């Protein structure tokens, strides 16, 4: 009797373990896909190892996912450190990784010093106002925001704000237009030449026009937005809406005809049709377009800021170039890496969105 019960419990325990393992494997696979999307694919072999998968196989996988990129990065740094001092410009030698890293520290210290100055300013102001009020309780006291220089971190924040404003404006224009193009062959034929002509135009060509238009239309007394901010954002919009527009149009026009016929049979109204059928099935395409748009927008923004002297990372680069000091080149390199990293992160964020809305869950 006992043996039977033992056997049955044993088998049920084994089954439980197998079930657990299967569940774990499924969870791991799911996690791996997600991690892959957000650029942390190298974590999944580690997780599998922890879960008890064959270490050898996972080790190979880990080398592929993590070891190779790291080695390549090391090689790049070594080559850079070796080659940089051999190029002599009029601003001194090209900085190597060490000098660039040093400037990261300097910029951070600058940021902290500026924040300290800001705090001191507010202290002084509070003291002044307190004294005034002590002398004359009815005195008018003013509190003013601090007017120091924007630090490197401030410039990054400004750039991000600008790019998202321009990008969202672009998306608001491009998605409806794209849907219209996809649904109607007439609209598509009308829009096509315009898209073809404007798509390849460089931001630098738009910039003077945008600057003039913004200057003419925005009042200069206490505008809601700074003119320079609007100039950059609108330039980003003009250059970044095309990928979204084209992809949306393609996505909408390639909807399954049967689906549309079902909609017609059910006598759905136009708006309902768009909302219920068109948009959901075109969503993966739309997000692919948005992802491309954001990449273009980020690239365009830096150029626009540089040329139009609008606050942000582009202006930081230009100002440093104008400074022409011995640390200028290293600081410009810091900006280059910052721009690259932020561009990469933005792309990853969009990719995650895209994966979330598309059916496949992968690229």
């Amino acid at each position, binding site marked *: 009797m006992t043996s039977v019960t033992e056997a049955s419990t044993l088998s049920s325990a084994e089954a439980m373990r197998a079930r657990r393992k299967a569940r774990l494997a499924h969870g791991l696979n799911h996690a791996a896909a997600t991690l892959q999307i957000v650029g942390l694919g190298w974590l999944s072999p580690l997780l599998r190892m922890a879960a008890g998968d064959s270490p050898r196989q996972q080790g190979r996988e880990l080398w592929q996912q993590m070891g190779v990129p790291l080695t390549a990065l090391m090689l790049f740094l070594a080559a850079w450190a070796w080659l940089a001092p051999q190029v002599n410009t009029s601003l001194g030698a090209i900085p190597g990784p060490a000098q660039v890293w040093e400037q990261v520290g300097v910029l951070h210290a600058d940021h902290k010093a500026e924040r300290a100055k800001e705090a001191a300013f507010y202290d002084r102001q509070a003291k002044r106002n307190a004294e005034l009020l002590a002398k004359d309780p009815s005195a008018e006291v003013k509190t*003013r925001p601090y007017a120091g220089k924007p630090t490197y971190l401030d410039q990054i924040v400004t750039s991000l704000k600008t790019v998202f404003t321009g990008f969202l404006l672009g998306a608001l224009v491009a998605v409806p237009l794209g849907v219209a193009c996809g649904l109607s062959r007439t609209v598509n034929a009308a829009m096509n030449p315009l898209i073809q002509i404007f798509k390849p135009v460089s931001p630098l060509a738009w910039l003077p026009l945008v600057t003039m238009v913004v*200057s003419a239309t925005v009042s200069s*007394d206490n505008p809601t937005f700074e003119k320079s901010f609007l100039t950059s954002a609108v330039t980003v919009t003009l250059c970044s809406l095309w990928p979204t527009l084209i992809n949306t149009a393609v996505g909408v026009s390639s909807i399954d005809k049967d689906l549309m016929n079902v909609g017609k049979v059910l006598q759905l109204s136009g708006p309902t049709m768009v909302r219920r059928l068109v948009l959901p099935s075109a969503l993966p395409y739309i997000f692919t377009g948005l992802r491309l748009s954001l990449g273009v927008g980020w690239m365009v923004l830096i150029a626009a800021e540089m040329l139009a002297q609008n606050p942000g990372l582009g202006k930081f680069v230009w100002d440093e170039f*104008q400074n*022409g*000091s*011995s640390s200028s080149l290293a600081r410009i390199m810091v900006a280059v890496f910052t721009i690259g990293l932020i561009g990469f992160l933005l792309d990853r964020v969009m990719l995650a969105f895209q994966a979330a809305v598309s059916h496949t869950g992968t690229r």
Partner: protein
Amino acid sequence: MTRDVIRDVIRLPASPRTALLSAAATLALTLGSAQAAPLDVEKDQLKLGFIKLTDMAPLAIAAEKGFFEDEGLSVTLEPQANWKVLLDRVISGELDGAHMLAGQPLGATIGFGTQANVVTAFSMDLNGNGITLSNEVWDRMKPNLPKGPDGKPLHPIKADALKPVIAQYRAEGKPFTMGMVFPVSTHNYELRYWLAAGGINPGYYAPNDVSGQIQADALLSVTPPPQMPATLEAGTIFGYSVGEPWNQQAVMKGIGVPVITDTEIWKNNPEKVFGVTEGWAAKNPKTHLALVKALIRAAMWLDENGNANRAEAVKILAKSEYVGADAKVIANSMTGTFEYEKGDKRAVPDFNVFFRYNATYPFYSDAVWYLTQMRRWGQIAEAKPDSWYDETARKVYKPEIYLKAARLLVEEGKAKEADFPWASDGYKPLDEGFIDGIAYDGRKPNEYLTKLPIGLKGGQAVQGGQLVGG
């Protein structure tokens, strides 16, 4: 001179504004000098533009030393890409005011380039520029120069020695190109004056041809200051006229040789001004006054005790948000030495003057001199009577605002009575400090134009690449 007489000299039409001002002044007096109440400004958050040159110093010092704050102003200083962008942004209202070339408010007011009424109540500095030639040109030019007993070239170096070099370049089929920073910049007029004094024609402007290269022996074109050394190195230009630190930068990098400083071309010439639009000045009179007060204090700080504060000023200017060049490059000229050829360091104590010699007072005669040069080179296409020069100068230069600010500072005990030309009528006496010895009297611009060697005189005009009339 008693105080009452002085008050008479600068008596201004009574208006609610002046009443308010004197009220503010008396208030300041009753509170005592240390506790002077700031003016009740119309706009207390300002954005001022500047170009990365050492002569923006008064702005940086006023910000760093808290002079703006003392006046109840919160000021953001923003570097600009080039002079055109700077002027456009002041006109469009994105900037409240800016560090400008002395020719910019004048040029804008008479409509050369952008038309807009820009005024100035504060002259920022004297001197501060130099002319640099590439190493190759210098090597060809050096044998033509008179030498002193120590074997070094005698200064000032005149353009006569450059004339044969330009001829050589032309014989080799190379046009002789030079850079300057802006068509209405001091640097352009100084370079033209220097070239013309040596018999080299720097070219004319005409209404339908604003390149300024008509009949030119030396072709001048615009290059932004910070890019001068790089452009010289690239061989696009053979020399340039620019403010500091870009002449000393050429020596440091070993790519060129500064041959002359502008104080040798015209002793103590006015250089930059602080400009605002006429509309802005009318709308914000007290803010304008407060700004001028802070700037006067900054200029005094820069020059006090025989330039004692210059070392500290260099440290401030070397910050990346201001000029940003290396401190040792900025220090050269700011502390009174100037390196010509590598190793040929000479003392030029007045290379940068911010307050001495009434540097900050906006003299009408300075404005008139710029206008004569605009006429000389054809930027002003037709002859104008002497009265027009005076009227234009008065339209742009506002010494009355300057003196009001100075008076407030004196009353607050922050400035000395003796430091300001209270009784001046805005015209300096006969000026004989030019490299070619031609004396300048600001009251007789047309007569002055006839004395200059190359240039438009009387009723002459440029038509179809030729000088006509007269």
